[in-house]
């Protein structure tokens, strides 16, 4: 079951904040976050392993709520380098593979 991301696209000015959400209809044991810059391969950002846990990467942090079966990615004081498409992924089928959301395209303008 593919997780659902929202919004599908965000346009910000440099320095503004953004929140990207990832929801699942199934119980989540973890949520993985990746960023893919235009024309490049996805790069792992962070993994959230238990409910309520927050992790950080640069000025990007994330939370994971097991009960609500969702995770949120927070981008604070966005920089031009944050532009790209963000994917959340959840493990499935014996945890051998990830199912990715459809992606959220983030555009940061100067």
């Amino acid at each position, binding site marked *: 079951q593919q997780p659902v991301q929202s919004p599908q696209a965000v346009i910000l000015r440099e320095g503004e904040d953004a929140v990207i959400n990832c929801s699942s209809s199934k119980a989540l*044991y*973890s949520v*993985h976050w*990746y960023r893919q810059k235009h024309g*490049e*391969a*996805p*790069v*792992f950002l962070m*993994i959230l*392993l238990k409910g309520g846990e927050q992790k950080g990467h640069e000025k990007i942090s994330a939370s994971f709520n097991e009960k609500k079966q969702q995770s949120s990615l927070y981008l604070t004081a966005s920089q031009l380098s944050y532009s790209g498409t963000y*994917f959340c*992924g*959840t*493990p*499935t089928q014996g*945890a*051998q*593979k*990830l*199912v*990715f*959301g*459809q*992606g959220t395209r983030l555009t940061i303008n100067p």
Partner: protein
Amino acid sequence: SQTIHQWPATLVQPVGSPLSLECTVEGTSNPNLYWYRQAAGRGLQLLFYSVGIGQISSEVPQNLSASRPQDRQFILSSKKLLLSDSGFYLCAWSPLSGGIAGNIQYFGAGTRLSVL
């Protein structure tokens, strides 16, 4: 450290021609290996994954196939390409055991395939 190599970076092929994309991983043993396809502006579609030599799981029935002849080598093939096979093909690897949390995946640089 572990590295993943994928080639070629770009490929233009006529409809009906065969395809072979190769992916190799260095610096690790017994990795899980994955092939994804990404259409322009779209998400990541898992095509195949492998948990060991000769073990291939197919996610989407189509005219593509995958093989894992060696522990750290993963090959994506087609006998006859279709226009709809165009896209960005990504190989990824993950450690064998990530537990119930799943395994972090590390992607190769990708192959951009245009079928004309």
